[in-house]
């Protein structure tokens, strides 16, 4: 893997982490008034996929989508403004943290119902197959999507039509407070289930960004070259509570030791250490990146804070296209 790519992946993870940490720090100010699901600890799959996907490729995601949106190139300031409910937000304040969109970079939307964007991604892939320009669609999903019926329906259709779609499944072991073993049989892997549906399926360490990159790169290449739908399961872990800024290991649904064990696998120091060792980066590079990122994040929050709220009358707009609105005052 090239030094440039390694540096890019590290910087992308650092950037996502910094954004999420800043949201967590400032969430208690009560200015971000919407359910917010942070990806701290599981930045590697997003960073890897973002580096693999081309600008013309598309992506969709679910409720925990900040990292995916940012990695795909989504506008940071518009995302923060959206979380602040401002009219300059990517969804003009209509959607909040769980409804991010930036079609300019192919991030076609994230929604709040588990599994809800899976068929949307497959439909986008159908449109890409018809357009025949070699574009692919990435569907970001979590382990709980494997428990929804719509996943199997969508995967089946994608397999029947050999659509250029790439499922990236972040298995972080929990759906809210419910551990994987009460939701899926312990002797059945997610990747094998996907394979049984006709998806070419691989799995690996989702806290190792280089492993994640290699798996996603190969799968994306297969999807692009007409080999049909691809599935990549990446094992990872969410550090903070399901929804909100805090740590919640004390409430009793998971053990502090489990969290500490996963924390030692933090993808950012893992790559940092490896790159320092081989001389791809040095301390000065890290500090320079931190300064750049910090300035960008500060600027995004300042933009969000200083942006106006939508007018109250905006609550009634954007529902129908013009031709219907004219009949529907």
């Amino acid at each position: 893997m090239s030094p440039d790519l390694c540096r890019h992946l590290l910087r992308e993870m650092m950037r996502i982490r910094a954004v999420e940490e800043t949201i967590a720090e400032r969430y208690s100010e009560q200015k971000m008034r919407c359910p917010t699901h942070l990806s701290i600890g599981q930045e590697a799959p997003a960073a890897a996929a973002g580096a693999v996907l081309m600008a013309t490729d598309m992506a969709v995601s679910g409720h925990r989508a900040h990292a995916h949106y940012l990695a795909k190139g989504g506008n940071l300031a518009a995302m923060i403004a959206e979380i602040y409910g401002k009219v300059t937000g990517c969804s003009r304040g209509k959607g909040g943290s769980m409804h991010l969109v930036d079609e300019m970079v192919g991030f076609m939307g994230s929604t709040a119902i588990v599994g809800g964007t899976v068929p949307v991604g497959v439909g986008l892939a159908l449109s890409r197959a018809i357009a025949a320009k070699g574009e692919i669609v990435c569907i970001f999903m979590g382990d709980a999507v494997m428990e929804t019926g719509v996943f199997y329906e969508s995967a089946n259709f994608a397999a029947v039509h050999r659509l250029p779609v790439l499922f990236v499944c972040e298995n972080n072991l929990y759906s809210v407070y419910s551990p994987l073993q009460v939701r899926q049989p312990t002797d059945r892997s997610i990747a094998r289930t996907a394979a049984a549906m006709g998806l070419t399926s691989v799995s690996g360490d989702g806290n190792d960004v280089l492993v994640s990159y290699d798996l996603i790169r190969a799968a994306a290449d297969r999807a692009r070259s007409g080999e049909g739908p691809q599935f990549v399961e990446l094992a990872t872990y969410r550090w903070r509570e399901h929804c909100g800024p805090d740590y919640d290991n004390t409430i009793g649904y998971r053990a502090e030791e489990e969290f500490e064990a996963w924390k030692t696998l933090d993808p950012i120091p893992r790559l940092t250490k490896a790159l320092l060792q081989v001389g791809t980066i040095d301390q000065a590079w890290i500090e320079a990146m931190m300064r750049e990122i910090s300035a960008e994040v500060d600027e995004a929050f300042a933009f969000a804070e200083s942006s106006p709220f939508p007018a109250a009358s905006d609550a009634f707009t954007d529902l129908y296209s013009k031709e219907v609105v004219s009949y529907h005052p």
Partner: protein
Amino acid sequence: MTYAQAIRDGLSVALAKDPSVLVYGLGVPDPKGVFGTTLDLHKDYGPSRVFDIPTSENAMTGIAIGAALGGLRPVLTHQRLDFALLSLDQIINNAAKWRFMFGGKRSVPMTIRMILGRGWGQGPTHSQNLQALFAHIPGLCVVSPTTPADAKGLLLSSIFGEDPVIFLEHRWLHNVKGEVPHGDYRVPIGKASLMRSGSDVTVVAMSLMSVEAVHAVDHLAKQGVSCDLIDLRSLRPIDWPMIEASVRRTGRLLALDGGHETGGIAGEIIAHIATRCWQDLRAAPKRLAMPDVPEATSPPLTEGYHVRAEHVAAAIAQLMVRDLETDSLAAARQYPHDVPGDWFQGPF
């Protein structure tokens, strides 16, 4: 041509006009072609644009949303509305809200055809008309054409409009014949049609109920009672200006409903008129709808279940406080109560 042929004609016009139009659904390219409405379209436009699907209603609806976001104009067909209930998540959480929840940037132009079954023992889960459920959802358009021309015109407006449309077609209308304009004929969504005009009573109906109402209104016209018969065509948005203007003239309102009474369209129309036109009303409004029980299977159990022309005529007579002859409407029907005509012999 028949209503079913008019739908096929509309689909064919759309497919020919715009390569982004897709037509898919269970049975779409099969030898029966969804009661003839999609017959052989795949032969003219190819299997990549007209195709059969897995039995996966929810995903195929989300796939239509994604296809629409990707620049296509999908038409999804369900042989019964009942089957589409599996797709409520995608319809309500995604299709209806996409434009709104992403700040108005992007519409999802898509058409979901749902066929309303009835009679011949189709029973509790093959004969539901849940039009009010869809009409309740902000962000959806719901249309329910009565005539072959309106079926084609509303279908083309649905396909080439920018909003998600639930297109309700009654199975009993598929064989109704009428004049249908050639080519790319459009009927605007949200505009009702005045099927009969009169001064005594405003009758508001939709789909098959409008056909029953035509029989009743024409029968009573011979006895000196004249009615405005408003065929809604669109159930969301509803053409309130036409209904309000009519009631202001007649002072009497009968709302018909092809769905269950509680929470139905007829109730909505009466509520709207009662709150906006109270001073114009000369009699308490009436409604006739399906009862609040599912439709059973055995023929005797469906005999008094549906609203027919004689019930409509009797309700109009009550509004007029007149003793009018209505029995002959039932006596004139030549076919068993559970079929629309001799063309309808099951199993569908």
